[in-house]
């Protein structure tokens, strides 16, 4: 089949999304299913088919979601309501919308998230835990809960020396 000429193709928009917590490894297909589920639940099948959503890139705490131009507002609203991907708690934060993937990739390079991280031991509530230290004040601590490991979001000030 001959490809459709560019002037006859639908215009697209690309939405850059930051994934919190950034160290989670999320498959782009799982992310797509989670976003589609939220979108369908919020706006129905008709709008979902019109938006023609796809996750075109998902790595290093970022994802790029593609949609048809004019539907990016609905996609952003659906992204806000995504709270789990493959039974993992996440939050998707929209960073930018653009007409090209290149400009979004440049944005990731210029302003990487979360920056340098370092895995170190930390003491919290009298227990020695594994912690992800980010640039600045943020620390994510893996503490032992009642049943399984618990992820706590803290700052350097909350840790014991």
């Amino acid at each position: 089949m001959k490809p459709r000429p560019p002037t006859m193709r639908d215009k697209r928009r690309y939405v850059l999304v930051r994934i919190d917590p950034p160290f989670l490894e999320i498959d782009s297909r799982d992310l797509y299913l989670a976003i589609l589920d939220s979108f369908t639940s919020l706006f129905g099948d008709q709008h979902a088919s019109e938006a023609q959503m796809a996750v075109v890139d998902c790595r290093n705490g970022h994802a790029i979601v593609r949609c048809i131009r004019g539907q990016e507002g609905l996609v952003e609203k659906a992204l806000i309501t995504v709270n789990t991907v493959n039974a993992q708690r996440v939050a998707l934060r929209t960073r930018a919308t653009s007409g090209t993937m290149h400009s979004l990739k440049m944005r990731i390079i210029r302003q990487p998230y979360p920056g340098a991280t370092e895995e170190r031991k930390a003491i919290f509530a009298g227990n020695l835990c594994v912690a992800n230290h980010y640039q600045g004040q943020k620390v994510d601590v893996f503490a032992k809960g009642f049943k399984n490991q618990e992820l706590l979001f803290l700052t350097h000030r909350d840790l014991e020396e």
Partner: protein
Amino acid sequence: MITTDASIHSYPEGDSSIGRMALTAREFGFDSLVAIDGKEDEIFDVRILRGVVLASERIQDIIGQIRKERQGNAIILVNAGDYSFNRSLLHVKGLHIIRHIHKTHKKSFDHIMARMAAERSIAIDIDLHPVIYLRGSPRQKVLQRYCDLVRLQSRFEFPMTLSSNAFSILEQRTARDMEMICSLFGMEGGQVKEALATIGKICSPRRPVQVVE
């Protein structure tokens, strides 16, 4: 303008420390937070206000609890109940916010109470947690209630607050996200900005001019 998230729950109730939530709130465009059962503080240039939630079905208990809390600068929030309870609440002095209207019967807040809330400057809270976390018919009911509240608000102009009711930084949303979510039930940009600034007005209410010297 002060932009406030009207209720968050920090560690140990949630999984994020108050410092981390304040840091996230600053990134997200807020300059103050109401921490339920927290303490007043200023962390990373974000003002933390103490919030107290009173949940009782008897109005006498609520009045007693408000009397106890009146000495501090706490923001007092009360969970809504049935029609008569809500109507009595609007006569209680010292109450700032009525929350969880979406959990009550659809006739538990009407135009008469909307006018009373406007006269007494008692805010009605819009909790965005159910809009984000519920799916299907329960979310539809919440959206319906909020749509009705917004219609009453634009007619009677009673104060409104917006809260993420977040137990984690993963549940906190940016001010822009809140605006987008609010557009789902017909709340416009100006109304959202006003709702985010309501806590600031509660903390420094308008008083008659005083002659200092």
